[in-house]
């Protein structure tokens, strides 16, 4: 069984006002097959954690480590991390002009598997995954994310999650900007991916509503760049009722 370990992770970014410390000692272990929800107020560093795992060059790891089955992820390039089995569903996926969804999916699958997928079964897989996400066939020939609505972009992210079959996926605010129908469709896609591959999930969200459709095993509350509290699904219910206020008293600011 695979395991993703985040150990005492400290991360900063360069801003116009100088270096800004964002993550201040994050510890988290995710086993394959587990769903962890990371919840927290805006600006607490949730997305920074997501992008640091994926390897975005903007974030500087000051200390700590990320290990995938004992192997140092921080030494890997962004594409090597993806090939090792990590996946990030982005909050704001960028447009890739000139590259169709079909072409993009095939290229990514080929890169991750190390060889081109067998054409017949691949086309079938893509079609099934798109049908499951209620994506029109015409999507396949559109350029990646170009002119996509917010909901379409999120579906396109989950389409990739289903087809690329990572060991661990980080979903960065996948629920934001989705109406309830789209949220259900996207959640079903995530649950399907989990049922099919048994991947581990790190679900980053501000709100609890996605947790009605994707049930977490563990909930972590993120405040000021570190985990302030953790527990089971019941912690999410409590946050739903109380909000984040009790974590934001000045004494907690580190």
């Amino acid at each position, binding site marked *: 069984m695979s395991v993703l370990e985040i150990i005492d992770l400290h991360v900063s970014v360069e801003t116009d006002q100088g270096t800004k410390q964002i993550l201040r000692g994050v510890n988290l272990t995710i086993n394959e097959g587990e769903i962890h929800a990371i919840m927290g107020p805006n600006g607490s560093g949730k997305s920074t954690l997501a992008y640091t795992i994926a390897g975005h060059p903007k974030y500087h790891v000051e200390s700590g480590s990320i290990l995938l089955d004992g192997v140092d992820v921080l030494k890997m*390039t*962004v594409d090597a991390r993806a090939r090792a089995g990590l996946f990030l569903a*982005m909050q704001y996926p960028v447009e*890739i002009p000139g590259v169709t969804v079909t*072409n993009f999916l095939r290229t*990514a699958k080929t*890169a991750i598997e190390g060889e081109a997928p067998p054409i017949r079964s691949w086309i079938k897989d893509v079609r099934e995954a798109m049908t499951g996400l209620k994506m029109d066939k015409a999507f396949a020939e559109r350029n990646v994310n170009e002119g996509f609505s917010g909901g379409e972009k999120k579906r396109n992210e989950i389409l990739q999650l289903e087809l690329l079959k990572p060991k661990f996926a980080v979903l960065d605010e996948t629920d934001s900007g989705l109406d309830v129908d789209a949220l259900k469709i996207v959640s079903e896609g995530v649950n399907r991916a989990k049922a099919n591959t048994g991947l581990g999930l790190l679900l980053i969200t501000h709100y609890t509503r996605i947790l009605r459709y994707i049930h977490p095993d563990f909930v972590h509350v993120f405040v000021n760049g570190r985990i302030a509290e953790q527990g089971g699904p019941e912690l999410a219910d409590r946050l739903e009722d109380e909000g984040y206020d009790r974590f934001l008293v000045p004494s907690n600011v580190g």
Partner: protein
Amino acid sequence: MSAASALSKSASKTMPESTTPALADPTAAKSVIPAGQHGIKEHSDGRFGYVPVQTRSDRFKSVQVADFETVTGREAVWKHSPIAKFTDLTAGSLDGSRYEIESTVSTDVSVEWVPRTDARIGTAGLPEERAAANAWSVFDDALAITVSGEEAKEITVTRSSLGNSARGAHTIIEAKPFSQATIILQNTGDARLSENVEIILGESANLTVVSLQEWNDSAVHLANHFASIGRDARLKHVVVSLGGSIVRVNPSVRLAGPGSDTLLLGLYFADAGQHLEQQVYVFHDAPKSRSRVNYKGALQGQDARTVWIGDVLIGNNAAGTDSYEQNRNLVLSEGTRADSIPNLEIETGDIVGAGHASATGRFDDEQLFYLQSRGVSEDEARRLVVRGFLTEVVQQIGSPELEARLQLAIEAELIGTDDK
């Protein structure tokens, strides 16, 4: 982000030329701008009575090099070009003798040298600048490619040994009425060449002309293509510039007959130090004529430079015309510059459509990150994006063999630049 400087530099060049005031977008196209319109007179901004040339078709033309002043670089037609690097072509004496060509053979297509007295010479257009007039003044014989026969056919004419001395050349491509063909002009090797190419389409002819510039790194090539399209005839004109130090291919197309139609495509990839330029001019001079212009270019490497100027003039007798021109540039690295200048002049209000678009975008770090986060390596990501960007033009050429070869040539450009 570090992209900002390159982006703003090229983006600032997407503004229309101030010397062409009769600029219009599709929504404004309905308004008629009559001659002698109020306001077309000297500006009040202290330019001392200077009135710029108003209409594209009014530019000075001559076949005599002596009729043109020495090139200063301030001329509209030269101001984006590195003129100091080819004074031999604008001011020197050129070798106008025949040169070696290789040509594939097809029935109903003749390739031959014809004397200066050939009746077709000068019927498609005349030089508007000094390098073109210089070439026109010196050529001994013109290379004439004459197409007849209604069946589709393709020939390739290759120049690969022009050498390093300054040359002037003249080519005529004539498609007889109702004829059909694809003519590929392939250019490789060394060159210091100024040339004029006349393309004449008879009634209902259907001609594709592809000019392919894959010169050696030091080559300089200045070309003017003049096309005249007869009634219901259709010209597809494709400029592909990949190799050469300075390559400037300027197609001027006159839609001369009612119902005439043209598709002008361009594809260019400038790498470090390369200057690739194209000044496209479409003159709608007949009713119900149609034009589409689509030029796409990629830039990568220090001082990679591209220039695209797209002039469309819809004449006052060109009722019911439909035109659209666009230029897209993809900037792949720092230190490049893409100028993109669409100009649209409309002399009749009775048109179906007239529009233009220009955009210069950058393959940026976020796009790279997105592709890499899906397992795609940096090199492959770049290839994917460039291939996707340029394929749209390649696929419209309509010659499967050439299209396949160009895809490979584009890949080679990407790899070639990586090494620099």
